[in-house]
């Protein structure tokens, strides 16, 4: 399924996009398969599939722990790509964005990584430690494989930078709503809403808001502020992290949580 087509279709229906973010292999590959199926059935529109990295500097405590557990479980970048291929075979039809830190990509080789990602069935890449200044090489490899390289903007991004980013972006813009790292937060900061307006004026690209989103109310506020969708990651990992010895027991709660978020994306503006 094409990324742009899916986002366009949601926009036409007046619906926001819900993109759960999971680090594959936390706490085990078997659980990740079940988790991803649960998310897809619960109404996820896109999936951000994370390849764990040893030093995730843009992530907060929940995802740091997720990466550590996944790596301890022996998960490798190739293992993640293989998993995506299997998910596709089993009928996962959502657009998938692969996310990982730049060294993982560099280590495999940019061209090879992008080719493998496309073969595995993803539509794009999110690289949280690759600002637009450093992105040209990967951008070329990604475009060569028909992959989107998703760029991020933040409350600290100046107008000048934002124009440079918008100039290279495709697919959607990932709008980091808070200063800081990933992690569920109780309240939505006013800066998030303000930023959404600032980006909206610059581009017609879809805007997906991320970092700190943990409640249906957050989703409603962000969509009202002009977002086309939301990324929810740590809030999901937090649920199964509480029962790591038998995480599948939490799948019903996760399903309920995702359904409530998806419901929020359908609320009228």
């Amino acid at each position: 399924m094409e990324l742009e087509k899916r986002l366009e279709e949601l926009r036409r229906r007046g619906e926001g996009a819900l993109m759960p973010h999971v680090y594959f292999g936390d706490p085990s590959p078997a659980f990740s398969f079940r988790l991803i199926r649960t998310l897809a059935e619960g109404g996820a529109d896109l999936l951000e599939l994370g390849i764990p990295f040893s030093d995730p500097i843009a992530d907060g405590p929940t995802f740091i722990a997720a990466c550590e557990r996944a790596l301890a479980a022996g998960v490798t970048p190739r293992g993640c790509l293989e998993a995506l291929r299997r998910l596709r075979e089993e009928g996962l039809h959502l657009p998938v964005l692969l996310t990982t830190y730049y060294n993982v990509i560099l280590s495999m080789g940019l061209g090879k990584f992008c080719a493998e990602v496309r073969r595995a069935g993803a539509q794009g890449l999110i690289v949280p430690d690759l600002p637009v200044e450093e992105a040209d090489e990967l951008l070329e490899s990604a475009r060569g494989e028909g992959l989107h390289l998703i760029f991020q903007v933040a409350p600290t991004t100046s107008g000048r930078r934002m124009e440079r980013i918008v100039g290279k972006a495709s697919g959607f813009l990932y709008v980091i709503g808070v200063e800081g790292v990933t992690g569920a937060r109780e309240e939505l900061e006013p800066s998030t809403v303000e930023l959404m307006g600032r980006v909206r004026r610059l581009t017609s690209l879809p805007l997906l808001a991320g970092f700190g989103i943990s409640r249906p109310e957050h989703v409603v506020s962000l969509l009202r502020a002009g977002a086309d969708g939301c990324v929810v990651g740590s809030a999901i990992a937090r649920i199964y992290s509480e029962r790591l010895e038998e995480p599948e027991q939490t799948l019903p709660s996760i399903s309920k949580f995702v359904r409530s978020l998806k419901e929020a994306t359908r609320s009228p503006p």
Partner: protein
Amino acid sequence: MKGRFGRFGGQYVSEVLMHALEELEEAFERIYPTPEFQRELGLLLRDYAGRPTPLYHARGLSELTGCRVYLKREDLVTGGSHKLNNCLGQALLARRMGKTRLITETAAGQHGLATAMAGNVVGMEVEIFMGVKDMERQASNVKRMLLLGAKVTPVSTGSGVLKDAVSDTLREWARCTGTTHYLMGSTVGPHPFPEIVATFQSVIGRELRQQILEREGRLPDAIVACGSGGSNALGAFRAFLQDEGVRLYFVEGGGESLEADNSAAAFRLGRPGVLHGALMQLLQDEHGQVKPSKTRAAGLNYPGRGPELSHLCETGRVKACHAFDREVFEAVRTTCRAEGLLPALETAHALAFLLNHPEEFSRGEVVVVNFSGRGDKDLETLMRYFYGA
């Protein structure tokens, strides 16, 4: 290219931090060259830090090696290491940028201590992130930081060592760049940090050049410095990069052995990769996951080599070497007995290389060791090693 040393360097950080890096680069280029800044820093380096540090003709080590050995006495900088040179510079810069708080990480505790001192000099709040393992093995420096009023925050993510503390400091900085300056302690991290730290540390080499010319009437044959990120080494080397006749040796932590996972020798065992914002020589596995480094010297226990150093070693201008833990402990004892000086375990890597590699140094050559820090902080480790108590 901006912020690059050959192919190394760059700015591989979250978009959240890019504004702060641009702001810092602009401020450094604007403020650093001004006479007011230079005067203020110069006075602090002289009257507070105790510069210039002496260049000492080490007769005992000279006798042992057959060379004319000089020690650049950075151990005499207030706080006991070269770290304060950079901390005073960056603290002054941060204050002029209107920041009110300094954060940083530390391993051996020397950089944390120097940041706490510099923070008090300029009147800024200080928070230090330190791996739980390092807090244990460098307990005396933790106490000194606390006495100076710094907040010391334990880091238990990853393996609870320097690499993890750097990650956590970057995460904290992303939350508060408006008020806070990350006082990077080594020539690592995203541009402009490697350039800023090397600039502030290059006072070592400028003094050294003048001092050796006064003493010997010529440049040295070789300079030996220890390191991981590279701040004391680049500080000493930068003034000599164009002098092809001066051989430059960089000594990294060999750890127990060069077997898997027992070493910090990134030049021997690593390959280029991106960590903490820069492309540099890096210890990593075949999948690009960063490997934990291992050495008894907490200050050398970092898996990356700063971008400038990575470049200088790749071009061959600097020779990358290593010393093993057991050689390092022996070098501490030898230096104590031969000179009456107690070097830090980190510094002892440079001394160990000089003592154990006669093939590199001809008789009568003038060799300068950058004596980057004193070893009081390592007393407990040394006692346990030598006396089992």
